């Protein structure tokens, strides 16, 4: 029996820890993007006017339409972003692919997204831990995503947990 404990952590992960990846930028947000998002997430009810009625929204503290905080301007890119290296999310010693699950997330919101905004995102690997779980040896990877608007204002930070087994 080997003294070495099983690990799915790779050298690439150790090298990438804390280092921000390349930034990517979404197309400008339109009123239609926001209205459709709000209609889909409120279906079959009518969404709040702040998400689609410019005249109403002008009289609120926001002075115009804002997007729901969970709105994703990165859906439907014309050019697909290259996926991250699987080695950044762990690797089995026997080379078989790991299965992934979304363990959850915490989003902290800053400036609201508005029609015309251009949002850029960057990601970094924060840390990880491994333990024996219900699904066998399991790697929990914590990563951070940061969104900023065209004025450099922080729009959102997301801390998410990826489960790899």
């Amino acid at each position, binding site marked *: 029996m080997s003294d070495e404990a099983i690990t799915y952590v790779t050298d690439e992960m150790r090298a990438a820890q804390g280092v921000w990846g390349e930034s990517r930028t979404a197309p400008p947000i339109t009123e239609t*993007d926001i209205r*459709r*998002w709000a*209609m*889909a*997430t*409120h*279906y*079959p009810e009518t969404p*709040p*006017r*702040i998400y689609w009625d410019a005249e109403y*929204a002008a009289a*609120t*503290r*926001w002075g115009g339409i804002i997007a*729901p*905080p*969970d709105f*994703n301007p990165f*859906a*439907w890119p014309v050019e697909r972003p290259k996926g991250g290296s699987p080695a950044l999310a762990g690797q089995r010693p026997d080379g078989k692919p790991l299965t992934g*699950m*979304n*363990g*959850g*997330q*915490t*989003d*902290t*919101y800053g400036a609201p997204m508005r029609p015309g905004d251009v949002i850029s995102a960057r990601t970094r690997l924060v840390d990880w831990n491994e333990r024996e779980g219900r699904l066998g040896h399991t790697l929990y990877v914590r990563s951070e995503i940061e969104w900023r608007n065209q004025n450099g204002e922080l729009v959102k930070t997301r*801390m998410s*947990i990826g489960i790899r087994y």
Partner: protein
Amino acid sequence: MTVSYEQIKIGDKLPDWSRKTGFAEWNRYAAVNEEFVPFHMDDEAGRRAGNEQGAFGMGNLRYAYIVNALREWIGDDAIVREVGCQYRAINQKDDVLTVTGEVTAKKAEDGENRVYLDINVVTQTGAPTCPGHAVVAL
């Protein structure tokens, strides 16, 4: 119905916000979030992924429901500052999902009147699916 910071007390409950979900809701969400994952769209793919009942709903849509419930409670002039949850269980077709929440703290911080809540999305049987927390500023 919206609330004011002064009115809110620790232990107050978030008004229930519910949706029955199935393909009509999941397909609309897939269309806006470009989330065309087979196990959310096709019963056979859902069974292949290990869910005997077939296709199942998106965690991200439950997250949206949490945000919507908070917005309805606090009104358009208030701020959803933070939402976090863990996806502990999936939700099935035609489940009636209800966002629940309870106020755990009130704090004046960073120039804002903030209210902290424990939140969850439960099914029609009361089964919790995604425990979490939220912070709103009023």
